[in-house]
């Protein structure tokens, strides 16, 4: 009996190990496909990094162009360049920026914290208030407060994010002087860790709200319709008939089911948040990855661009995984084959 039990145990361990292995293999394959595709896409755009760099100096000659092409291997055959790139991806060496002459990993590493702080805050802010407001709106469906929430979220959704950001700067920074207009931290002032954190938090307010606004609207709308739909279900009526308290019905029966579509959408958007903050980062001079990406595109700084694509795609994959796990946690009926 113990043998059978340990055999089952062993079988289970093997299954989990296989599952992890399978997932890892898929992960690597997806990353390599992305690396190849992004390489091809980046090179498909017209423009030559050597010329961009030479052009910005206002004077150039053949020698300079040749030097730049030689230095970065741009004169080698296309296929060799692709092979070099894939080899780098496998060995996690992302190469060196053409323009800044720094390792790509350093450049991305320097910017990653700022981006994660901004997008993470915006994401949580949007998700939390979206779920809350959406639920409120659904529970008050048809009343004036529901209408108000609907209208506000529609306006937020339709509003260009840069415009919202600039308007908030005008009101809260220029006129009222409550929050800094731009920047990541106060420059030129020595501060302790706590002071620094508070300072960054102060600078974070406007950009995070700007970035959260659009997503907030989406989550609110989604949550509202989802809650309304779930509230119509028979098991809710049953719960009511059982005489359960309204609060318990909402928390245990309605929200748990209604939140699933929101989690799905949020999981998809979480990945996009990393790369999608270009506008907000520009308006608020926030030193994040969005701006790095934008500049790298303009400069045709291939290594930086490819490194960013890679990091972003890995983050998207990880967010997808996290969503899967979260999904199962919220709704245990959801399973995958790996566990079967």
């Amino acid at each position, binding site marked *: 009996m113990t043998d059978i039990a340990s055999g089952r145990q062993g079988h289970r361990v093997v299954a989990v190990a296989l599952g992890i292995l399978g997932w890892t293999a898929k992960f690597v394959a997806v990353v390599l496909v992305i690396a190849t595709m992004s390489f091809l896409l980046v090179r498909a755009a017209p423009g030559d990094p050597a010329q961009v760099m030479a052009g910005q100096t206002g004077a150039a000659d053949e020698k300079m162009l040749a030097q730049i092409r030689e230095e970065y291997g741009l004169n080698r055959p296309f296929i060799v360049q692709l092979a070099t790139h894939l080899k780098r991806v496998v060995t996690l060496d992302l190469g060196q920026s053409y323009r800044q*002459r720094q390792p790509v990993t350093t450049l991305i590493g320097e*910017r990653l914290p700022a981006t994660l702080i901004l997008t993470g805050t915006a994401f949580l802010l949007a998700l939390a208030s979206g779920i809350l407001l959406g639920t409120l709106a659904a529970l008050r469906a048809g009343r004036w407060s529901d209408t108000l929430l609907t209208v506000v979220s529609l306006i937020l959704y339709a509003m260009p994010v840069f415009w919202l950001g600039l308007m908030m700067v005008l009101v809260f920074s*220029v006129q009222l002087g409550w929050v800094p207009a*731009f920047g990541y931290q106060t420059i*030129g002032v020595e501060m302790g860790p706590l002071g620094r954190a508070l300072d960054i938090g102060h600078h974070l307010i406007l950009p995070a709200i700007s970035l959260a606004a659009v997503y907030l609207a989406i989550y609110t709308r989604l949550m509202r319709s989802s809650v309304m739909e779930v509230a119509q279900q028979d098991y809710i009526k049953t719960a009511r008939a059982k005489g359960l308290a309204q609060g318990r019905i909402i928390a245990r029966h309605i929200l748990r089911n209604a939140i699933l579509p929101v989690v799905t959408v949020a999981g998809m958007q979480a990945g996009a948040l990393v790369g999608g903050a270009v506008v907000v980062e520009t308006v608020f001079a926030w*030193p994040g990855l969005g701006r790095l990406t934008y500049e790298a595109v303009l400069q045709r700084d291939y290594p930086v661009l490819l490194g960013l694509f890679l990091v972003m795609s890995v983050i998207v994959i990880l967010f997808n995984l996290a969503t899967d796990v979260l999904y199962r946690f919220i709704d245990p009926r959801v399973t995958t084959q790996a566990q079967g």
Partner: protein
Amino acid sequence: MNRREFAKLLSAAGVAGATDIAWGVTRAVGQTRGGTLNTIIQPEPPMLVTAINQQQPTLTIGGKIYESLLRYGIDLKPMPGLAQSWTISPDGKVYTFKLFPNIIFHDGKPCTAEDVIFSCTKVLTETHARARGTFLRIEKAEAPDPLTVVFTLKEPFAPFINSFDCTTAPILPKHVYENTDFRQNPANAQAIGTGPFKLKEWVRGSHIHLVRHEGYYRQGEPHLDEIFYRVIPDAASRSVALEKGTVQLTQWTDVEFFDVPRLAKLPNLEMTTKGYEFFAPHLWIDMNNRVAPMNDKRFRQAVAHALDKKAIKDRIYFGLGKEATGPVSSKTRFYEKDVKTYDYSLDKARKLLDDMGLKAGAGGKRATITFLVPPYGESWQRLGEFVRQALGRIGIEVVLQGGDIAGWGQKVSNWEYEMTANLLYQFGDPALGVTRSYATSNIRKGVLFTNMCGYSNPAVDKLFDEAAVATTDAKRQELYSQAQKILCEDVPVAWILEQDFPNFYDKKLKNVITTGIGVHETFGTVSFG
């Protein structure tokens, strides 16, 4: 992002007239030493070593870190830099410079004639495309003593004495760079020069922090303790920073042209367009001379007549500039004003087109031309739209094409364009900044800022060649005047404006613009109060 809309909103919101904006900087009155200057750097430079990278932002900050033998006044006359005096032999071939004593680099080592020779003959000829053309003319470079540099040229080259500003000939430490790969030297991250300021910290995407170089050889300089260059990518945010006093100085295109009239009215700010004389940016409509109908000079003359330069200046650049009359900027040396000019006249333009047989077809259309809009910001887009409207009136349909910087550079340098616009610097001497756009020898496919329009005229080539090696200014003036007259007849490109850029600065800030390179200068004497 639409900055124009934001500007309108700013005005609508009453910010335009706001006078009592909180002034965030406190400082003692009458104090010349100490203080922190906050300013803007945009875009963020890739590095600060001006010998290796010559992009605009690199030069702006690098000018505080790296110095050269000379400086040049607003009139572009040489002044002492690292060299306290200099002589030129009568045959125009031997240049002798005497350095100031006690010059030290940021790492504490002395700067001597050896460093100057090493920088000019070894580093710059390798890494600096613009300096290469000048310093390859050196036959022999000697240091008879540590404070004397003697350059002997292969043949006279008059602009040689104009080539020692800090953007053309920055002096690097030989002991750091000798026998290394200059571009990959780890010291590039530190940027070791002799200037009054040295690099303290660079937080990428955020700011660059310069602090006082204590061992600076000029007594009492620098006056400021530190300078922060803040990276602010959005133009509206830059204007807000200036208005709020977060920054006390802006330069080049930090402030969009449409914001200039509004900011110029603020009581706490001073505005000047001085300090760009060395660069003397010249704006023109570039016509590919290889392509019909632009291969006919009558067509190019017609274009020159059809474009209302004053309107372009006033409407697009808000008055910042001066109407250009020819290839040489009136701000630089050897400008000739007695040339054929092109007044705004649609009738003259139409007549020229009629003469060349370019008759109006159905709907009054004579020809269709594509205009590649330079992707450097909104004013270029508006310039393109202006050209389309203006040429439309004489029956030339202009189709605007967009793109990004890399795409524009590739198309223009490979001559795959019909019409575009360009802004080129003159670098203090026609031999350095003007010849390159019209000389046959500089028609080089794939290289930006060469003779891209493909103009070729042996008479002009000969005049440019002779003027470069002539040793007296009178002779050079005569040759350049002749060249300008021919060029103005041929109009290889339609010169539009001598472009001005605004420098805004806090009224308490003194000595900001003192030389022909303006904000690129060392800032050793800049002070508050």
